[in-house]
């Protein structure tokens, strides 16, 4: 093929991490001056391939070529010197320093040892003007919203005169209008003759902006072609390897009585300039009110950083004590007749007596076996009696995380490494976290003795039901892959079983098969009468699973939609406050 050499190439690159072959004979070529989309689902190997291209990783096999010439990259500094730039998924910014300081770090203007801050500021402002990026060189990065931080990352690469820009999932943290603004910037870069490699797993983006597409699956390249003429269905087939999976067979919900009622929940940000996260004194949650009913999945949509994390934390009782404080009420309902979850024998008894019920209660759980993968009754873990009307309620104010767990609130955390897992402890001990102070795990007079056999049984059941591999109970959790770790956490929380499940990004980092599994279990839990609050940054997931959809914007409930009827555009509009084209 004649013509100019591709701006960036990977030639037969292979990379293995322990037992996993992340890249298997990957060959990739991005034409100069094109916007090239590198597509695939979570775990396909896209990020690994591009990290190799940028010199952050050394390939086991194969080579990287820039402008047709193979090069040896000892580290990112070599890549930068060759004109490459990369904006990673997790920004590498120093919050405590200004935009200008962040941009020039490593290539600072000035003589000898001194630092020319004024010159740095001027240069940054100039670059920003060229591409119509809005940014204040003197602002502290820690106080900027996410979209602005991304612009700083772009400037870092542009300051070093990158001819090829690699962007790893840049739209994961942006609202639809902000995505539009970013794409406008990318088009301007293309006009300047720069090459852009866009890693994404979102089909719509590929179709909107890419000139060329490379599809990866399971560490291999399965297709590389111009984007023209490509349609969504074919793209999906290439990504997944088969026809797009049928939407999960989900019976319509039969919601019962409200399990959680939230009224006027307001959470203030931590005070002062030193507070974490960007937006100064504005409350993170502002007068949020809603209800979650038994037997329904309430989805919470919104760009990350609009209050979802604070909402989940507030309900789980894990609010940051350094934060400015909160107000409003959260009432947990439907406790009448519900045996204390700490006593499974009594729970079983009350379930048997559940024949006579008040009018507002839901149907008893359909016996399992009908749905593939639905949760079989776990006698050991204690069962959940269906709600019997809301005569008894508990105000969650003042209840700590322990009490809330005792009341039946389970929580799949957003950040499994920080909160959900004990990386150095083994799988068995991880599987009892949160259930460790109740029978059957803890027995004896003061519930002080751990019943090893019961722990083993429980752990093995969770690992089996949620297909966690390898299922070796003595393995430290650190040894599992991210997807398996997430399945373990999800399995643990779903198996309690809870009355109210808070699921934050439950399938983050999980491949398609595992995500399907978790989704099936979530629906089965819902059908068994649990109330589920689902927070996800994947609109697809929300639209599929949720029975009702709330959209959060700037800490307020921007609206409620019916996922069966709403369109992505409608949701996107509400996610950004309803104004079209206005980036934050």
């Amino acid at each position, binding site marked *: 093929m004649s013509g100019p050499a591709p701006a960036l190439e990977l030639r037969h690159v292979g990379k293995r991490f322990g037992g996993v072959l992340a890249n298997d004979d990957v060959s990739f070529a991005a034409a100069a001056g094109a916007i090239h989309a590198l597509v695939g689902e979570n775990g396909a190997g896209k990020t690994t391939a591009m990290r190799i291209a940028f010199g952050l990783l050394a390939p086991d096999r194969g080579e990287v070529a820039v402008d047709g010439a193979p090069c040896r990259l000892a580290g990112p500094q070599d890549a930068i010197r060759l004109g490459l730039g990369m904006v990673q998924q997790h920004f590498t910014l120093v919050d405590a320093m200004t935009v200008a300081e962040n941009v020039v770090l490593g290539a600072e203007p000035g003589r000898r040892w001194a630092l020319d801050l004024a010159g740095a500021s001027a240069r940054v402002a100039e670059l920003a003007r060229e591409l119509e990026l809005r940014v204040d060189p003197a602002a502290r990065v820690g106080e900027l919203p996410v979209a602005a931080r991304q612009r700083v990352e772009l400037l870092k690469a542009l300051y070093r005169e990158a001819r090829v820009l690699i962007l790893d999932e840049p739209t994961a943290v942006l609202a639809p209008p902000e995505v539009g603004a970013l794409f406008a910037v990318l088009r301007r870069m293309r006009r300047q003759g720069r090459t852009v490699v866009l890693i994404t797993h979102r089909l719509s983006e590929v179709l909107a902006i890419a000139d060329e597409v490379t599809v990866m699956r399971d560490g291999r390249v399965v297709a590389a072609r111009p984007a023209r003429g490509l349609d969504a269905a074919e793209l999906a087939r290439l990504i997944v390897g088969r026809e797009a999976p049928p939407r999960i067979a989900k019976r319509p919900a039969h919601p019962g009585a409200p399990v959680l009622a939230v009224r006027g929940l307001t959470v203030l940000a931590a005070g002062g300039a030193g507070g974490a996260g960007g937006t100064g004194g504005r409350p993170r949650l502002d007068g949020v009110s809603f209800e979650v009913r038994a037997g329904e999945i309430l989805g919470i949509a919104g760009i990350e950083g609009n209050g979802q994390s604070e909402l989940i934390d507030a309900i789980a009782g*894990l609010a940051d004590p350094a934060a400015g404080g909160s107000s409003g009420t959260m009432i947990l309902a439907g406790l009448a007749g519900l045996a204390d979850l700490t006593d499974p024998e009594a729970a079983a008894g009350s379930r048997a007596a559940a024949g006579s019920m008040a009018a507002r209660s839901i149907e008893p759980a359909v016996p399992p076996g009908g749905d593939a993968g639905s949760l079989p009754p776990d006698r050991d873990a204690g069962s959940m009696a269906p709600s019997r009307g809301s005569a008894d309620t508990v105000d969650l104010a003042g209840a700590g995380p322990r009490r809330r767990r005792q009341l039946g609130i389970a929580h799949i955390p957003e950040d499994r490494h920080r*909160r959900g897992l004990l990386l150095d402890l083994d799988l068995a001990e991880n599987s009892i976290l949160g259930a460790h102070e109740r029978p059957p795990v803890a027995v004896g007079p003061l519930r002080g003795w751990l019943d090893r056999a019961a722990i083993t049984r429980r752990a093995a059941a969770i690992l089996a039901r949620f297909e966690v591999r390898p299922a070796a109970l003595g393995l430290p959790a650190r040894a599992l892959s991210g997807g398996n770790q997430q399945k373990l956490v999800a399995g643990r929380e779903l198996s309690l079983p809870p009355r109210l499940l808070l699921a934050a990004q439950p399938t983050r980092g999980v491949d398609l098969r595992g995500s399907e599994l978790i989704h099936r279990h979530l629906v089965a839990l819902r059908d068994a009468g649990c109330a589920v609050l689902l927070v996800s940054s994947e609109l697809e997931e929300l639209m599929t699973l949720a029975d009702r959809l709330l959209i959060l914007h700037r800490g307020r409930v921007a609206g409620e939609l019916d996922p069966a009827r709403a369109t992505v555009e409608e949701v996107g509009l509400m996610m950004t406050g309803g104004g079209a084209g206005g980036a934050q």
Partner: protein
Amino acid sequence: MSGRPLARLGPALAGVGQALVRLGPALAPLLALLAALAAGGLLIVAVGDDPVAVYGLLFGSALSWPDGIGYTLFYATPLIFTGLAVAVAFRAGLFNVGAEGQLYAAAFAAAWVGITCAGLPAWLLAPLACAAAVAAGSAWGALAGIFKARFGAHEVITTIMLNFIAVALAGYLTRFHYRQPGDAILETRPIGAGAHLARLGSLVPGLPARIPLNLAFPAALAACGLVYVLLWRTRWGYELRVTGASPDAAAYGGIAVGRQLVIAMAISGALAGMAGINEVLGYRYRYYDGFSGGYGFTGIAVALLGRNHPAGVALAALLLGGLVRGGLFVGIFSEHVSRDLVLVLQGLAILFVAVQRLPGRPAR
């Protein structure tokens, strides 16, 4: 890419690897100790002595019967306690450098009970004195725990400060209120006979009673067993270990992290306190200034070498107890090497364990 012979090499290596892994837990600290001894050998040469002779004296005096082994076990006893103390704290994510102060507080408390209640019969006095020791050590440890839980103050700094304060307070009380008149060294009056812990020599045939090895030693071994059961078989131990593994995950799982920190330091302090009774109730029968030969600090080496596990702690304590015994002999009998060599060896051992990045240590 690989040929046939290479392909068969793989599984063979894997087999060797597996065997090594099973030995693993004991191997790493042993390597660290050997490395420390090697480095110490270089130091001995630098100082002008013969490493073979010095180490020969060191180990020989530690392993002779009955005096060597007897004294080794005697010195190992407080080290088992302080090692357990530091290990339990590490399991909770805390670095307890204050075992020294905690055992001083405990030792003084035990002596105080032994003196003021001297008239009580043995079956009452000895346990009472032990209880006082445990309570005092526990309180002193809990103090540091509260500072961490409530104020976020780093426990290394607070426990070291508390060390100095404990020694000073005990010294003050000894000098001004409980001084043995006429004695040059700062020590208290003797405790009542009822508080004495029986020498093992009077119970075990073949062991002369002049060796101060006493009931505290079997008590230390029992403590190892109790700590194991506590940490791995009880809910409270699980909560403590989870707190140490990840405070965020602990809070998420419904564990009160602040309370766990204080409880862990209290248990740690109690164990360290037990170290004091070996000397006060089992040997000198009084409290005196400077009685601890740095048992608190040595406990750190014991815990790290023992990988923060009670069985490892027991073994490491025996090793380091032997070093204490041998160190004394080396200090007396060798030309240029003083017993401070043992401190240097300990520090090097801690360093070499640290670079192996073994799990089960404080997060920050």
